[in-house]
């Protein structure tokens, strides 16, 4: 008999177990369900669970709970997921733990939707494969868990919605290839590039609290001086010095290319392109309803080629905005690997969001915690009388370290100066 995947749903009805292997079988089955639900279950962790069991009375579910939980999760966000899976796996639908008696009888049974407990044994184990698959699919859809399918479904839904009801502020579809970039004249582009060359060194450094050797620095490195003086019989002939290390920061740009940003797009594209070519380690992402990693496209030497390649990849250019979901995608798909305490994240967007502000708030908070500085550039801030009062912007603002305008070259100069003062 094989173990079938179960996805934690609203609440338990099915149960997977490895019969004939006692508690070990149960736990392995449980671990697989956890892994299926998205937790990182390494074999090291499973081994530690078994090591834990040597010291505990495993007939007491409280201990099973505490020991598996301590070993299997590594952040508080995972607790609710863990609890749901635990309930589903170890308890029947009345909330009673499976006892030894009925677990024998249950074997590898997937219970059907039978409300009363008496039906449990009656459900039988002869469900066809199709029925089971169907069952699982339903479980997945109804579950509130972040499965891949779910995400895909949401983003699709989001897109179709946009197509149907585009409000004036979210202008109708328009593809990049139809835009005339040549209106940005050569002088302006040259100026932009000069400016960016000025910004970059200021953005790309952070003074570390760690020290490095530097003979011209002021602070004396006593440790080195003494150690070196031993060669000269303890006479300190030469003073070694050190200073704070300057760390390279990584910059990540997340740029809104939705409809409402259209009037700034030309400028933005130039900005992104120039920045990308100035800082090789820069990562650029663009989003409207979906997040796309634009870095490889922008690396092309010729600006026109770069942009047309990008345009062919970003299908929802000038579409609606779902900032929350896109930041979420960023956090989940890229955040773990590319963010650290030296990363500056710049979000360029007007903050007009049609998505879920709760998600936006949560994800902004997460992003803020994982990076060195979170800067929000809002082109609207340049227009007279603008106040960040729309839902999206209001939600995101508390998590931004800086909130600045970026509608023209002057505002960029201002931004540079501001960052230089930090």
């Amino acid at each position, binding site marked *: 008999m094989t173990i079938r995947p179960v996805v934690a749903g609203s609440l338990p009805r099915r149960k997977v177990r490895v019969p004939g292997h006692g508690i070990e079988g149960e736990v392995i089955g449980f671990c697989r369900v956890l892994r299926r639900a998205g937790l990182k279950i390494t074999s090291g962790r499973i081994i530690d669970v078994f090591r*834990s069991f040597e010291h505990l009375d495993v007939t007491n579910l409280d201990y099973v709970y*505490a020991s598996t*939980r*301590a070993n299997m999760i590594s952040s508080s966000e995972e607790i609710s997921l863990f609890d749901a899976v635990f309930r589903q796996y170890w308890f029947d639908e009345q909330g009673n733990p499976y006892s030894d008696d009925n677990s024998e009888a249950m074997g590898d049974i997937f219970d059907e939707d039978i409300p009363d407990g008496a039906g449990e044994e009656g459900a039988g184990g002869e469900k066809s494969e199709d029925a089971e698959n169907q069952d699982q699919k339903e479980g997945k859809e109804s579950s509130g868990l972040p499965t891949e399918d779910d995400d895909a479904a949401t983003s699709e839904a989001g897109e179709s919605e946009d197509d149907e009801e585009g409000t004036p502020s979210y202008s109708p579809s328009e593809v990049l290839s139809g835009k005339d970039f040549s209106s940005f004249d050569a002088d302006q582009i040259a100026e932009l590039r000069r400016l960016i060359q000025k910004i970059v060194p200021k953005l790309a450094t952070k003074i570390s609290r760690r020290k490095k050797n530097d003979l011209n620095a002021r602070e004396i490195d006593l440790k080195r001086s003494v150690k070196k003086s*031993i060669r000269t019989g*303890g006479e300190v002939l030469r003073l070694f010095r050190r200073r704070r290390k300057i760390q390279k920061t990584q910059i990540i740009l997340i740029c809104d290319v939705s409809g409402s940003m259209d009037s700034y797009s030309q400028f933005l594209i130039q900005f992104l392109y120039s920045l990308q070519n100035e800082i090789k380690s820069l990562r650029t992402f663009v989003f409207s309803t979906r997040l796309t990693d634009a870095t490889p496209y922008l690396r092309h030497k010729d600006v026109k080629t770069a942009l047309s390649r990008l345009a062919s990849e970003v299908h929802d250019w000038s579409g609606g905005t779902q900032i929350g979901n896109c930041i979420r995608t960023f956090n989940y798909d890229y955040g*773990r690997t590319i963010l650290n*305490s030296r990363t500056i994240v710049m979000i360029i967007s007007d903050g007009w969001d049609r998505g879920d502000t709760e998600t936006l708030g949560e994800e902004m908070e997460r992003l803020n915690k994982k990076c060195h500085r979170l800067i929000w550039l809002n082109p609207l801030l340049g227009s007279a009388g603008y106040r960040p009062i729309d839902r999206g912007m209001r939600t995101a603002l508390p998590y931004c370290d800086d909130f600045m305008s970026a509608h023209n070259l002057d505002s960029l100069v201002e931004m540079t100066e501001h960052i230089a003062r930090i």
Partner: protein
Amino acid sequence: MTLSQSGGTKGRKVPEIDLSSAEAVQESIRNLDYISDSTLATTLFLALKLEKPLFLEGEAGVGKTELAKVLAKLLDTELIRLQCYEGLDSNSALYEWNYAKQLLHIKMEEGNKGDSKQVEKDIFSQEYLIERPLLRALVRSKEKPAVLLIDEIDRSDEEFEAFLLEILSDFQITIPEMGTIKAVRNPVVILTSNRTREIHDALKRRCLYLWVDYPTFEKEVEIVRTKVPEAPPQLAEQICRFMAEARTMDFYKRPGVAETLDWAQALLALHKEELDADSVRDTIGCILKYQDDIKRLDEEGLDKMVATAHLAPEVGV
């Protein structure tokens, strides 16, 4: 201190403490005035048995640091604390040479026309070594394991995390001038974090994870009664009911258990038998530390909350 060339960590024995089961642990720390639940006690018990570091996360003031202190008392051993901050380096975490003393020694040897090799040997001996918390934890864990508290790890930087990872996996430290120092027993390690930033997965995976939540109303009453035994029972209950309510509100800094205890002490000092709106206003600084939060509490009906705190006698312990 053991200078070991062989790396035999495996055969080391589990510390012999009379903490035979999770209940025993819960009971023992209860006797030291730490109120826990079964999950916390079991996790703590496992951390001791498996010799895995315990990673505690939770809001500020829920008793994370306190748990380490209680554990040290329980094991009747030294609590070695390393407070983290950005830029914390091996000189302050691990060891440092006593330069001033070394210099003095060198100066004194100068007149003796001694062998400079011997001088070097002298000044890089244990006498000139300043033990910092991590080294001290390894050295002191002999008959009994020391309790090493690495507090607020979220304040340190990634360099330190990586460095810690190395120490926590082998429990040995190499000092180039002296050799490798290895713990006779693995110290009991507790890491705490207030979640101002995410700690790297690699470090967390090495630990048992425990989320320390705000206590339930009943637990908190028990905590107040234990820690502030002079407080009248009805006052304790009212305080805890008020706090439970306050924690549901959207404060910049939500009050923790530490604040509850401070507040109970304060009200006791004012000879209050019951909670009333005026004394809450007078002592609000005990539980809320931001002006905006205090304003919000006042706006959202402090009087009503006090009234609610007086109700619901059937929930009492």
